[in-house]
């Protein structure tokens, strides 16, 4: 068995169908997020929202590589992870708008998207909380002999909280089928990650402490993401234990809501906009002979899907106030004790 790092150097063949699927996934993610941004400014998104604009290649590359029954654990920046595992777009959009048709009945909103039917095991808004949880799910998969792998996505900032270190040690010492994916977008909220972290690569440089290899990846190169994802999933699925990956990427917008992200130097933002994962992949596809019309068609289909989802969400009703009193206990209610 090759190590994750060695394996990552050997390219794997990606079929053209797969590539087009990944292109479609990135566009779905991009257009969904752009729409969410617009709806926020219309006052329609309830609560807050953290967009993954610019980071789509990580979610798409992994979702494309994962087996249907694999388990995704993500953060409040989790729209795209949940969507690309196959959660229905209209119900995700409805959830952002706090409607009763939302994937969580309009109770959870942007930060808590969950659809266990497609393996989207939850968006966790407490930084780091989901990392030991993913390890536990991986243990369950192993104990039940299902061959599932749990994949946990988190930010660079999460590498400084205790739960991250507890999870890595648990996963390593128990040899669990779990892949930890750090999306290093250089900022923990408004603070540059380098200002609050002892090592330059917040995830990869910690790997050695748990007997793992530090895998660093260009998170804006979807083919690289897909390749590493395939290798890591295979590694974990075959009983070789956890993998820790650090994907370098960048969010195009601010941390949340209306944050304009002014704390970031203009040149830095500009340089990363140049490295937008979507046009980069599109040029590569065109260079490899895919017709522009094919790509345009994919884009138009994504656009239509997002518009339809938005229309449905806009017209959906808000939850009935009585739903506040439901689903706290196994009996379906909230009044068991009083």
């Amino acid at each position, binding site marked *: 068995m090759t190590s994750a790092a060695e394996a990552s150097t050997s390219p794997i063949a990606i079929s053209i169908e797969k590539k087009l699927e990944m292109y479609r996934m990135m566009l779905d993610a991009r257009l969904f997020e752009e729409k969410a941004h617009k709806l926020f400014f219309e006052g329609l998104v309830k609560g807050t929202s953290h967009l993954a604009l610019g980071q789509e290649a990580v979610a798409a590359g992994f979702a494309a590589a994962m087996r249907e029954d694999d388990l995704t654990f993500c953060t409040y920046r989790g729209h795209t992870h949940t969507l690309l595992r196959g959660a229905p777009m209209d119900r995700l959009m409805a959830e952002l708008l706090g409607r009763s048709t939302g994937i969580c009945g*309009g109770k959870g909103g942007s*930060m808590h998207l969950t659809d266990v039917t497609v393996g989207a095991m939850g968006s966790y808004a*407490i930084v780091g909380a989901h990392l030991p949880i993913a390890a536990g799910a991986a243990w369950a998969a192993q104990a039940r002999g299902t061959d599932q792998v749990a994949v946990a996505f988190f930010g660079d900032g999460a590498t400084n909280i*205790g739960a991250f270190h507890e999870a890595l040690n648990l996963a390593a010492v128990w040899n669990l089928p779990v892949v930890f994916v750090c999306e290093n977008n250089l900022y*923990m909220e408004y*603070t540059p990650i380098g200002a609050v972290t002892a090592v330059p690569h917040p995830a990869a440089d910690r790997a050695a402490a748990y007997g793992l290899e530090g895998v660093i990846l260009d998170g804006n190169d979807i083919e690289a993401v897909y390749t590493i994802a395939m290798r890591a999933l295979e590694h974990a699925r075959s009983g070789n234990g956890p993998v820790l990956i650090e994907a370098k990427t960048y969010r195009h917008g601010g941390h949340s809501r209306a944050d304009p992200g002014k*704390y970031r130097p203009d040149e830095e933002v500009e340089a990363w906009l140049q490295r937008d994962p979507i046009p980069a992949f599109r040029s590569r596809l065109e260079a490899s002979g895919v017709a522009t019309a094919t790509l345009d068609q994919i884009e138009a289909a994504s656009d239509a899907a997002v518009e339809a989802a938005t229309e449905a969400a806009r017209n959906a009703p808000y939850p009935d106030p009585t739903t506040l009193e439901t689903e706290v206990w196994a009996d379906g209610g909230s009044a068991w004790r009083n």
Partner: protein
Amino acid sequence: MTERNIAQALNDALDVALADPSVVLLGEDVGRTGGVFRVSDGLQQRHGAARVIDTPVAESGIVGAAFGMAVAGLRPVAEIQFMGFSYPAYDQIVSHVARIRNRSRHRFTAPMVIRIPYGAGIGAAEHHSESTETIYAHTPGLKVVVPSTPYDAKGMLLAAVADPDPVIFLEPIRLYRAVKGEVPDGHYAVSLDEAELVADGTDVTLVGYGAMMREVRRTVEALAAEGVSAAAVDLRTLAPLDLDPVVASVERTGRCVVVHEAPRTGGLAGEIVASVQERALYSLRAPIERVTGWDTVVPLRRSEHHYVPTVERIVAAVHRTLEA
């Protein structure tokens, strides 16, 4: 005197407190950006990065380090971004911060403040909107305080910094920019163990604190319009509870309605009701009413107004006590 909202009053309090070289402020994004609610805006520029410290996302580390600073001679003020993020630090707070005076037989104290914005307001459900003060008020060794006006915000924060014991300082998110008032410049302190009678009346006594004081004050007005004379007490300190003004008022009114947005079961209202009936049972003319949040998870903005007690719900409770 300067007209300030609560966020500005707190900013001013921190600025004044930082004149003492033993005071430090630490938390996520508190320095460069001035914190999620901009309460520490400009303070790092003024007092330096060694006094206003940007930390990693690591609440247990923030509170643990603040505690270490406190037992070793500093007066740290730790900021937690939202109440729901205080739980990673819960072990430090409950197992160590709260107990060190007793455990060390008085040799150590932890003169520190943990500032926590709490309650509904940004509409983001769960962690960003909850009101779980009871778990801290239930812990011996912690003072838990919550202002509802700019004047109290500044004076109580300065008192908290000066206090020899750890203080959980709750900041009502909904009121940060919603109420303005005249705030003295420079240093002053507001006692951390006195509730305040904010309206006097003869028919019913309303008891509230923090963000709910806006609804409580509006209820007093709404009741006045229908000829009901309501007294209102702003508790300000949840641990220790000062119920003297409540009891004194209930002895006049014979009726009491306690308001909080925290869930009902095990909420502080239960404690308040028990204490008031212990001390004033024979003055009561009606069962004491509680108007609280529901025993459920705080929902998203659209449903928030169904969760947080409204003036209408408080008025209805008052009517029940009048009709009893």
